[in-house]
């Protein structure tokens, strides 16, 4: 069975500082990994995904994520946070080798203070 965990319900960062939102996963085969962001009163937006190749994936709004197979992690990062990055972030995983559905984490609320 596949699963994804976001161990932090909330992450607080000062504007201009680097941010990390953590995600770990479990799949029986190889994973496809995704990050989505949900701004207040809006639907989820795709940020980035890892399919294959370079472990460092770059996405929208200056975000990037690093796939670490040995640690089964796919942490979301940004070198310098903006107040406008404040939102709810969801990590998601799908097993490459099966017809399984995508599984979303419980979400991490990112709060950037000025």
């Amino acid at each position, binding site marked *: 069975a596949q699963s994804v965990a976001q161990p932090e319900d909330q992450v607080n960062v000062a504007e201009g500082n680097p941010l990390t939102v953590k995600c770990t996963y479990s799949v029986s085969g190889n994973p*496809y990994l*995704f990050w*989505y962001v949900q701004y207040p*009163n*809006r*639907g*989820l*937006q*795709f940020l980035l*995904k890892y*399919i294959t190749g370079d472990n460092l994936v770059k996405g929208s709004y200056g975000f990037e994520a690093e796939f670490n197979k040995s640690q089964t992690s796919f942490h979301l990062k940004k070198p310098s946070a903006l107040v406008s990055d404040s939102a709810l972030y*969801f990590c998601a995983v*799908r*097993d*490459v080798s099966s017809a*399984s*559905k*995508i*599984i*979303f*984490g*419980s*979400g991490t609320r990112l709060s950037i203070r000025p």
Partner: protein
Amino acid sequence: GAGVSQSPSNKVTEKGKDVELRCDPISGHTALYWYRQRLGQGLEFLIYFQGNSAPDKSGLPSDRFSAERTGESVSTLTIQRTQQEDSAVYLCASSRRDSPSTEQYFGPGTRLTVT
């Protein structure tokens, strides 16, 4: 181009009534998904449609929930005899095809409140 749209944006209904939620996917997207998001929680898969294949209904929580899709266009999610625990945001998403590597595009959701 137009994104995924959902209607209504908000729905307040009395316990025991039936409700119908609508989703218009992005044109040309063959895969369509419904999710439920309870307050402060993650997304709960409900059902997905892929082209003319039989839908995957494995996430529907009870037989009060059903969904239909007309070809590769509009989908409706129906909840019969609503209960208070049905209160949530119902999200619809579509993708070009149901491939594990394809990202989904989400609508703004319908906030359902059962009183």
